[in-house]
């Protein structure tokens, strides 16, 4: 500590090391949060259900998505990334997951929402297995922190199915 520069260097190094430790503890504090999210998805209409020229089924649908994800936010949350995926089984694949819609929520106030939307991304099957098929709609979320570990979880909503015939 014998010169100005030496003291300044020591101070900066020590302060930044302590900052890393503070950020690690902040990330650990996220584990104390017990979230209680809820969600509901209603399929209003299946707009198109056709077989493409290549032979794959394509679906276009309109949904009402409502959710209350406010309890997922902590002081260490930067944003919430959520997406809705349709999940179903085919003879070829034991699990198909097709992402239909996603959003980024950056403030706790916006985490309780209701949206009427058609699928943002195309829903195309690998094959033509969708007629009469039962599927789940899952709302996934990724809680992205300001520092530290990211948490991801989901709600599975069952009981949806495609019509028996193309329309």
């Amino acid at each position: 500590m014998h010169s100005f520069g030496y003291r300044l260097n020591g101070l900066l190094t020590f302060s930044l090391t302590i900052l890393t430790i503070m950020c690690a503890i902040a990330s650990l504090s996220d584990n104390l949060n017990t979230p209680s999210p809820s969600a509901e998805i209603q399929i209003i209409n299946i707009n198109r259900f056709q077989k493409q020229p290549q032979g794959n089924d394509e679906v276009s649908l309109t949904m009402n998505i409502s959710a209350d994800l406010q309890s997922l936010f902590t002081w260490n949350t930067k944003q919430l990334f959520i997406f809705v995926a349709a999940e179903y089984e085919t003879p070829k694949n034991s699990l198909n997951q097709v992402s239909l819609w996603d959003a980024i929520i950056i403030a706790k106030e916006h985490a309780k929402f209701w949206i009427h939307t058609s699928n943002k991304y195309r829903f195309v099957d690998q094959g033509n297995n969708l007629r009469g098929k039962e599927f789940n709609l899952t709302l996934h979320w990724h809680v992205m922190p300001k520092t530290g570990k990211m948490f991801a979880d989901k709600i599975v909503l069952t009981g949806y199915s495609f019509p028996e015939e193309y329309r």
Partner: protein
Amino acid sequence: MDWQGQNLVEQIMQIMLLVFAVIAFVAGYVLGSFQMMMIVYAGGVTLTALITVPNWPLFNRHPLNWLDPSEAEKHSKPQVAVSLKKKGTKK
């Protein structure tokens, strides 16, 4: 800065930084604001820097008394006795 001052400064620096870190974390956690934690901590680091880094007179109260150059010449440096042991060279 003299040796006593350096010791004191190092202690003050470490303790102040740790105390401000704890205060900042608690403030941020209680207020639910990460930004508040960063602001309080940055303020603490600046305050610590102002107190410990410049060469304040308070840290120079025990200065070292270096010998004057004339005194040094009178008491000249002791000669170090060097004994060379000659080792036989191998042919």
